[in-house]
């Protein structure tokens, strides 16, 4: 059904004021604060905790005590259980507050048989979506909190080869549910050419496997610098990163976050040495809100619609038409006419029923009347006839001599009485 809706298009020249809305949002968002739920997945020992701590420049995930790292040795033969852990932190910077939740999956990929090791991770993502879906369907949803995973940092081991089967399997399972950001961990073990080559291979695999990874949007009216920066980020996928929270001294005397090797110092925040800065830009500085927006508007919506359809809830597209008072009036008119027609039919039926009942009743009493009259009349006529006959007979007898014939007379009389 096509609807013709007239829309006036204008550019206002003077000051009207609605262009201030983004500024209002800016202020409002500072007041409300921000939340961000980030999942970090990768094999143990790839520096996940360190990287997260480096990203937010504070200890968010405490390093595991050494005895925990060796616990496997004591339970020889027992498969390590993958569990999901959440760590939260409140970070404030220049009056802007961020509630950060980091979800980790310790034990991923560490078992001998990793066939199902992805399951708890996928379950966690799904259950957070389910939770949100349940919450938004509740009558009171003022207390709704967004626990959905907004980004998943997937740590690729710097093998220099390519993606492993487990990497591909996990990424394929989650790429339509989360903003996937693959990173090459501990990239200081690869020399520049190796990094480039490894990146190319990984990207080829990702393309070949049709895995969707998060790509920031470039807007038409972004200025050149923003666009160039965004393109540079995309060109560096997947980011090869190094994490370190400790400060080291460079040969030229600067104190930097980095790792000191006998052969030199790798600086975390040095863009020419690794992609840490780019990753931070994408994850926090430039695109955190976009990650959330995509999660909410695209990924969650997709999950939700598939789930509802599976539950047998049918799409009703009639509710999406533009509201039009005229159509509405017509609908009401139709409704009214239907109501009138129904009223008329009902009244007519009652009326006709009543009329025909009354008619029948009257006809019946008419018929009764005639019948009764007819009966009486016949009876009377018969009596009159009999009497007339008798009278005639008597008159005849009067002129004749008396004859004894009482029997016949008696009989006739009996008949008369009946």
């Amino acid at each position, binding site marked *: 059904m096509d609807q013709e809706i007239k829309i006036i298009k204008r550019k206002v020249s003077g000051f009207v004021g609605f262009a201030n809305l983004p500024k209002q949002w800016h202020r409002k968002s500072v007041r409300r604060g921000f939340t961000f739920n980030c999942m970090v997945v990768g094999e143990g020992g790839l520096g996940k905790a360190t990287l997260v701590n480096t990203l937010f420049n504070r200890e968010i995930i405490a390093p595991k005590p050494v005895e925990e790292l060796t616990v496997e040795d004591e339970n020889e033969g027992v498969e390590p259980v993958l569990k999901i852990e959440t760590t939260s932190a409140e970070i404030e910077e220049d009056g802007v507050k961020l509630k950060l939740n980091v979800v980790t999956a310790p034990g991923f990929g560490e078992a001998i048989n990793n066939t199902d090791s992805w399951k708890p991770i996928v379950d966690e993502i799904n259950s957070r979506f389910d939770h949100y879906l349940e919450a938004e369907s509740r009558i009171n949803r003022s207390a709704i909190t967004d626990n959905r995973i907004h980004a998943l940092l997937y740590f690729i081991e710097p093998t220099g080869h390519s993606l492993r089967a487990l990497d591909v399997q996990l990424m394929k399972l989650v790429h339509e549910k989360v903003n996937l950001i693959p990173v090459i961990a501990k990239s200081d073990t690869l020399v520049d050419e190796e990094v480039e080559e490894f990146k190319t291979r990984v990207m080829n695999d990702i393309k070949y496997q049709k895995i969707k990874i998060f790509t920031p949007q470039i807007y038409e009216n972004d200025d050149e610098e923003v666009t160039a920066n965004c393109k540079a980020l995309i060109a560096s996928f997947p980011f090869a990163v190094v994490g370190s929270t400790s400060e080291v001294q460079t040969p030229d005397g600067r104190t930097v976050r980095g790792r000191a090797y006998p052969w030199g110092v790798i600086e975390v925040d040095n863009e020419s040495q690794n992609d840490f800065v780019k990753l931070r830009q994408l994850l926090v*500085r430039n695109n955190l809100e976009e990650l959330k927006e995509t999660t909410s508007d695209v990924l969650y919506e997709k999950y939700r619609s598939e789930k509802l359809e599976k539950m047998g809830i049918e799409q009703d597209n009639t509710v999406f038409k533009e509201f039009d008072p005229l159509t509405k009036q017509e609908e009401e008119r139709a409704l009214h006419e239907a109501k009138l027609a129904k009223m008329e039919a009902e009244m007519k039926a009652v009326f006709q029923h009543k009329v025909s009942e009354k008619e029948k009743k009257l006809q019946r009493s008419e018929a009764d009347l005639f019948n009764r009259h007819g009966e009486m009349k016949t009876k009377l006529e018969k009596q009159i006839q009999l009497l007339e006959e008798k009278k005639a007979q008597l008159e005849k007898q009067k002129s004749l001599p008396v004859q004894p014939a009482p029997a016949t007379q008696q009989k006739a009389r009996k008949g008369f009485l009946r």
Partner: protein
Amino acid sequence: MPEAVGISNLPNQRFKIVSQSGATFTLMVAGESGLGKTTFVNTLFQSTLKQHDDPSERHNKFTSTHQTVGVSIVRALLEEKNFKIRLNLIDTPGFGNNVDNADLWTPIIDFIDDQHELYMRQEKQPLRSERKDLRVHACLYFIRPTGHSLKPLDIEIMKKLSTRVNLVPVIAKADTLAPAELEAFKARIREVIEAQDINIYTPPLDIEDPASAEHSKQLIEAMPFAIIGSESDVEVSPGNFVRGRKYPWGVVEVENEHHCDFKKLRSLLLRTNMLDLILLTNEIHFETFRSVKLGLSSESGTAEESSVKKPRRLHNPKFKEEEDDLKKFFTEQVKAEEQRFRQWETNIVNERNRLNQDLEDMQAKLKLLEEQVKKLQVARK
């Protein structure tokens, strides 16, 4: 020292996203006709968005268009400094033109409720990215500048509006009131609003931001805003034009804060509190409607059915008329039939009398015969 993490940039990201996606804003104007609703809207957005009704139509109270209070929608896509909004203007023309105004808020209230309900139904669909949103973010209620107080009708309508929408009462055509009269009028209206517990929209006071709190305070103190609308510019000094109205005794300037509260109202609606209006609508008014609706339907058991199949009140006075006509038609038919039956019954009674007479005659004849026979028999003996 390593650089900042970048969290302080998050509000800028939000700013950018909002700038890109634009916004939807729905403004409703309500109030008696002739108070300058159309002019005000055009003044506010500095564009002729709404055409004035044809004056000849406007005053012909016998045409059908003005006998019903129909809601009209003007949709516009406006751009200011690269920022786009989809603006919906909801007008309620003809309001107050009827002699009996007892039920005239129903179409307005129904419109607001309908939009909430429609949005609710859209939200439930598996695929819902194409949502159409006409939920009213602010309703300007135009008060006639009588200088007295609010009329019972105003109070009634404002009460009904204030529970479901951000209500902003304004004094229309304020150039008919002198400053002292205006102050007294405002004070009386504020008193009534308070006494009647009418919940009008008030901008929030942000304690952490003294400048914005002060601005909000000024807005609140000026309520209800006294406004003047004008779609034409007048020359105040050679070569200097302002938006206003030129009287023989002077020029009223729309944007002069000493002349009226137009600027304050514009600030409240757009410049400072537009987002607040939008969020309040979504988080309070819509949620309240939704929870009441869901609460009701879950009580009655059949959640979906009852909300969908609710018999709609039809408030078109013509409908009522047609129903009455139909009833009248049947009543007349019934009367005609009753008349026919009465005649019929009379006929039956007459006929019965005639037949009875007939029988009596026969009976008399029979009696006579019997006597004659008896006589003959006696004579025989």
